[in-house]
């Protein structure tokens, strides 16, 4: 595909936002957005893993495709992602133990974050070259962090509002997410076509 770098960046952050438009990375989106102080760093950690996964996926494909072993793609991607998450975990543990404790189970859960695997799969499906893949990954991570932070800010404020009992909890989060997604649809077409 011949998307330009700017197009890819705008699309992945806004109109094709990983969380709000492509539904990738839903588990942390629902689980970690109770406070911005936790959501934002998780977004950054995930962005880092996404970047690493993207680069590794690109390199892996340089080997797998000429050997016609595309069926090993999935297994290789997920193994690489697991290793990358392990690295991030060790780093966070050393640099900031309180953050490590605050993120809890969600740090190792980045491995099963659809956004990370999704980046690798989509960039392969769209046949992006190296710069395009990198931009896609960066935009994806930024968009992910943006969505998480936005929802977290809203949820923090909603705590002071009166909410019907039946809507409390996950149902409310989903409705808020739906409205956020609707808002982001306004960006559609921003990066596409001429």
């Amino acid at each position, binding site marked *: 595909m011949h998307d330009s770098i700017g197009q890819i960046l705008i699309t992945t952050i806004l109109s094709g936002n990983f969380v709000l438009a492509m539904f990738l990375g839903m588990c942390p989106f629902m689980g970690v957005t109770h406070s911005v102080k936790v959501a934002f760093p998780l977004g950054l950690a995930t962005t880092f893993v996404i970047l690493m996964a993207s680069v590794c996926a690109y390199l892996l494909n340089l080997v797998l495709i000429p050997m016609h072993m595309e069926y090993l793609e999935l297994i290789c991607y997920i193994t690489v992602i697991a290793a990358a998450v392990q690295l991030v975990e060790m780093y966070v543990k050393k640099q900031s133990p309180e953050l490590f404790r605050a993120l809890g189970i969600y740090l*190792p859960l980045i491995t099963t974050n659809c956004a990370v695997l999704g980046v690798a799969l989509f960039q392969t499906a769209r046949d992006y070259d190296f710069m395009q893949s990198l931009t896609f990954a960066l935009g994806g991570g930024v968009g992910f962090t943006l969505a998480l932070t936005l929802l977290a800010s809203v949820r923090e404020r909603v705590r002071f509002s009166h909410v019907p009992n039946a809507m409390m909890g996950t149902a409310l989060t989903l409705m808020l997410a739906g409205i956020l997604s609707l808002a982001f649809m306004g960006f559609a077409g921003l990066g596409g*076509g*001429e």
Partner: protein
Amino acid sequence: MSESTSLPSAGEATPSGAMMRALGIAATVCGLIIVTAYESTLDAVARNKKIATERAVFKVIPGATTVREFVATTGGIQPAGPTVAEGGVKFYGAYDAAGVLKGIAAEGAAKGYADEVRVLYAYDPVKQAITGFSVASMHETPGIGDKVLSNQDFLKNFVALDVHLTADMKAVANAIKVVKHGTKQNPWEIDAISGSTVTSKAVGKGIRESTEKLLPKLLPYVSKLKEGK
């Protein structure tokens, strides 16, 4: 993975040799399962793809009964093999029951409103025009983007969309252009559907880019196709 998530079970840590062995065995067994699945479905998948392609080509080139795949390169036309040569463009030749070439079909793709819009278009080498198209896949907004499939005025653009080549057959003389609804003046322009310009433009762009790549390589050697059976 990390120590903080492992079970608090009693017992000594496993020696790394045993760990590597377990991982190695698991990886090998899984690899075998994958390869078996891949090999056993290879034929069925290829057959499905062929049927899907034929159905799509028959839709845009009515009257055709067989489809043959070719690759056009700067040096000539060859029957398609398992891989496409560098710089080669794949296309389909559609023949009727008597073995006469009814038309050429090729694929084009461009980004629409949401993800890629892939089209299959029919080309008449005698008229040097596009005679029809169908959408192979798209994820456009239902009710808006999918109007390209049903809007009669839009479809009329593709009855004789002019893509004739320059005299030296090196390029398409007039690039296909998607213009605002109601402003079409030339046979190489496409009247967009008002309200779904993005998807209309995607269809136009996909066909334009594909024709620009394919036709200069195809037209000089098209007579070779007519002798096909």
